[in-house]
C-alpha cells in the first residue's frame, strides 16, 4: 500500500539521514554502555569460569575473592579428598597487593597475585598472548592490560612484596576492571604474602558437577567436624557473588548513562517527527479535510517514527559492532560484549523511544484544523 509516512520521510532525504544518524548514534551509545556493563561481568568472572574448580572452600563468611578475606590452614586438602564425589583438590593463594613497576620505579599499581600449582596448571592463566604459560620461581605472568598500561614486556621486572619477578608471559582476559591478575608459583606467592602455613581457598574438582551442591554440603560438614569453620560455594554461587559486587558497584554509574542515551534518542526522533509534522501541516490538514480520521493520522506518525527508529537501529547496530571491535585497541581495559540480550534490550529501548517520540506530533495532528485547506 502507498505509505504516505515513508514517502514523506524519503522525500526529505537530508533530514532523514540526520534523523537516522541521530538514532544510530543513540543506539550505539546505549548498546556500547550495555555492552561495557556485560563485558565487565564476563571479564571479571572469567577466572572463575575458566578455572577447573567446581567448589570453592573458604573461611566462614566469604562472599567473593575481592572484598572478603579468607584464610585457611594448610593440610585440609587431605580431609577434603576423603569426601565422596571429590575428584581433586587444589590450593589457591591470592590477594591484591601493590606492585612496583621497574621501568618507572617510583610508580606503583595494585595487582592481584595468584600463586598456583605449576605442575597441574590449575588456577593459572588460560590464554597467553605472549611468552610462556607456566612461570618458574622468580617469574610472573602479567595481564595484557597491565603490560600495555605500564609499558612492560617479556624480560622486564616488577617488584611485589619485596620479591623481584621477571615477566615471562602476558595473559589475556585476566583484567578485572580495577586491577589485573598476575600469576606466580605457589612458592613465590607464599614468599610474597609471608604466610607459609596458610592459604586462601581450596579449589575442589568433583566427579559429577550435577551433584556439586551435595558434595559442597558434605565437605562443609566434614571440615566443621574437625572444628574448621568454612563456607563451601559452588562455582555458580561464587560467580554470582562476584557479579553481585560488580552490579552494586557499577549499575549506579552505567544506568544513568544508558538513560542519557535513551533521552538523546527520544529527543532526536521527537524533534525530527515534530518538525516533519509542522512542515507538512497543510498536507495533514488536506488529508483530514478529504476524510482521514484520527487513527489514519496516528498511523502515519507512528510509521514515520518506527521507520526512523528501525533504520537508526540497524545503522546503530553496525556502528556498535565496529566500535566494539575497535575500542579494545585504544582502551584495552574495556571489553564490550554485544550479545542477543544486549541487542534485544536496545531494540526494546528504540521501540519505546519511537513511541514516546511520536506522542507530541500525534497530539499536534489531533489539533490540526482541516478548515485551513480553504485558506490561500
Amino acid at each position, binding site marked *: *500500500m*502507498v505509505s*504516505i509516512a515513508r*514517502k*514523506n520521510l*524519503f*522525500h526529505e532525504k537530508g533530514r532523514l539521514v540526520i534523523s537516522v544518524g541521530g538514532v544510530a548514534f543513540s543506539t550505539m551509545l546505549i548498546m556500547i554502555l550495555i555492552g561495557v556493563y556485560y563485558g565487565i561481568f564476563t571479564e571479571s568472572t572469567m577466572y572463575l569460569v575458566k578455572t577447573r574448580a567446581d567448589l570453592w572452600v573458604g573461611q566462614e563468611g566469604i562472599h567473593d575473592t575481592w572484598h572478603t578475606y579468607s584464610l585457611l590452614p594448610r593440610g585440609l586438602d587431605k580431609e577434603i579428598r576423603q569426601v565422596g564425589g571429590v575428584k581433586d583438590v587444589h590450593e589457591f593463594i591470592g590477594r591484591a597487593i601493590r606492585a612496583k613497576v621497574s621501568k618507572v620505579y617510583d610508580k606503583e599499581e595494585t595487582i592481584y597475585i595468584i600463586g598456583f600449582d605449576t605442575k597441574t596448571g590449575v588456577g593459572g592463566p588460560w590464554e597467553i598472548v605472549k611468552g610462556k604459560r607456566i612461570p618458574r620461581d622468580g617469574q610472573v605472568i602479567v595481564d595484557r592490560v597491565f603490560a600495555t598500561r605500564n609499558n612492560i614486556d617479556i624480560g622486564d621486572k616488577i617488584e611485589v612484596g619485596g620479591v623481584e619477578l621477571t615477566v615471562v608471559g602476558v595473559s589475556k582476559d585476566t583484567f578485572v576492571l580495577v586491577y589485573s591478575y598476575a600469576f606466580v608459583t605457589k612458592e613465590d606467592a607464599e614468599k610474597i604474602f609471608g604466610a607459609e602455613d596458610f592459604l586462601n581457598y581450596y579449589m575442589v574438582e568433583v566427579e559429577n558437577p550435577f551433584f556439586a551442591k551435595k558434595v559442597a554440603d558434605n565437605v562443609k560438614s566434614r571440615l566443621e567436624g574437625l572444628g574448621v569453620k568454612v563456607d563451601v560455594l559452588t562455582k555458580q554461587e561464587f560467580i554470582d557473588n562476584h557479579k553481585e559486587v560488580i552490579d552494586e558497584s557499577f549499575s549506579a554509574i552505567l544506568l544513568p548513562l544508558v538513560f542519557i542515551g535513551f533521552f538523546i534518542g527520544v529527543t532526536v526522533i521527537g524533534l525530527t517527527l515534530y518538525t516533519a509534522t509542522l512542515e507538512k501541516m*497543510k*498536507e495533514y490538514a*488536506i*488529508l*483530514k*479535510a*478529504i*476524510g*482521514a*480520521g*484520527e487513527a*489514519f493520522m496516528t498511523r502515519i506518525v507512528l510509521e514515520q517514527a518506527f521507520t526512523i527508529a528501525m533504520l537508526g537501529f540497524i545503522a546503530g547496530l553496525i556502528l556498535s559492532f565496529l566500535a566494539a571491535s575497535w575500542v579494545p585497541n585504544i582502551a584495552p581495559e574495556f571489553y564490550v560484549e554485544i550479545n542477543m540480550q544486549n541487542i534485544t534490550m536496545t531494540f526494546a529501548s528504540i521501540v519505546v523511544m519511537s513511541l514516546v517520540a511520536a506522542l507530541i506530533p500525534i497530539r499536534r495532528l489531533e489539533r490540526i484544523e*482541516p*478548515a485551513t*485547506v*480553504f*485558506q*490561500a
Partner: protein
Amino acid sequence: MSEERKRLLEVMDVTKIYGSGRTAVKAVDSVSFTIGRGELVLLMGPSGSGKTTLLTLISGLLKPTSGNIKIDGIEITDLTQKELAKLRLEKIGFIFQHFNLLTALTALENVMVPLVIKGVREGEARKKAAELLTNFGLEDRMHHKPEDLSGGEQQRVAVARAVITDPDIIIADEPTANLDSEKGREVMELIHAMVKRGKAAIIASHDPRVEGFADRILRMEDGRLKDDVHGGA
C-alpha cells in the same frame, strides 16, 4: 427518486459568527438554498462575502452557529468528527485553488489517497487511479511528482483525486484561479462532465469563465445570499 434524495444539498437558515461580543463577525448570515443532482452551482461574490466560510460549513469542516445542513438527507451539524470524516470521504470531493496535492507523492499516488484512507486494496486503487488519470489525459504524467507538473496538470490530478471515490458533491474553491483560460476550461469541462453523471457541484469563483458552465449562480454579499439565478449552462 424521493424529493429529499433529489435535493442533494440543503442549506437551511445557516449562520456562522466568528468571535463573540463586540468583536463578533457574522461571516454567513441566514443563508438558505438547495442543490439537486445534476446541478453545477456557482457561488460568486466579492472577497470577504462569506463564500469560503459557506463552503467550509457545507464540507462539515466548521460547525454553523445556527441553522441546518443536510447532505443526501443526512443532517451533518449533528455528526461527530469521526462521522464527518467518513461523510467527507464518501460523499464529498474537494478541489482547491492551490491544488493542495501531497508533495511527496506522485500524481498517481495522490489520486489513490482517498482510496488508501478508505482501505481499498492497493492493486484496485492503483488501477482505478490510473484509469482516471488516463481519461484526464495524464497517462504520461502519472508517475511525476507535483513539482514536475504544470498548474493545469496539477489541477487535473486534483480533480481526479476529488472524484475517485465517486462522491455525490464536488466542492471547489476557485478551481481555475491559477490556470490560463484553456486549462481553466479543461478543468471546468471535467467537473461539468461529472455533474452531468448525476453528481452536484458547488464552486466558489470570481472567474467569469466559470459562469458558462453554471446551472445556477448564487451571489453573496456581506455574508448574505443576494441572488439565486439561472446560469449560462
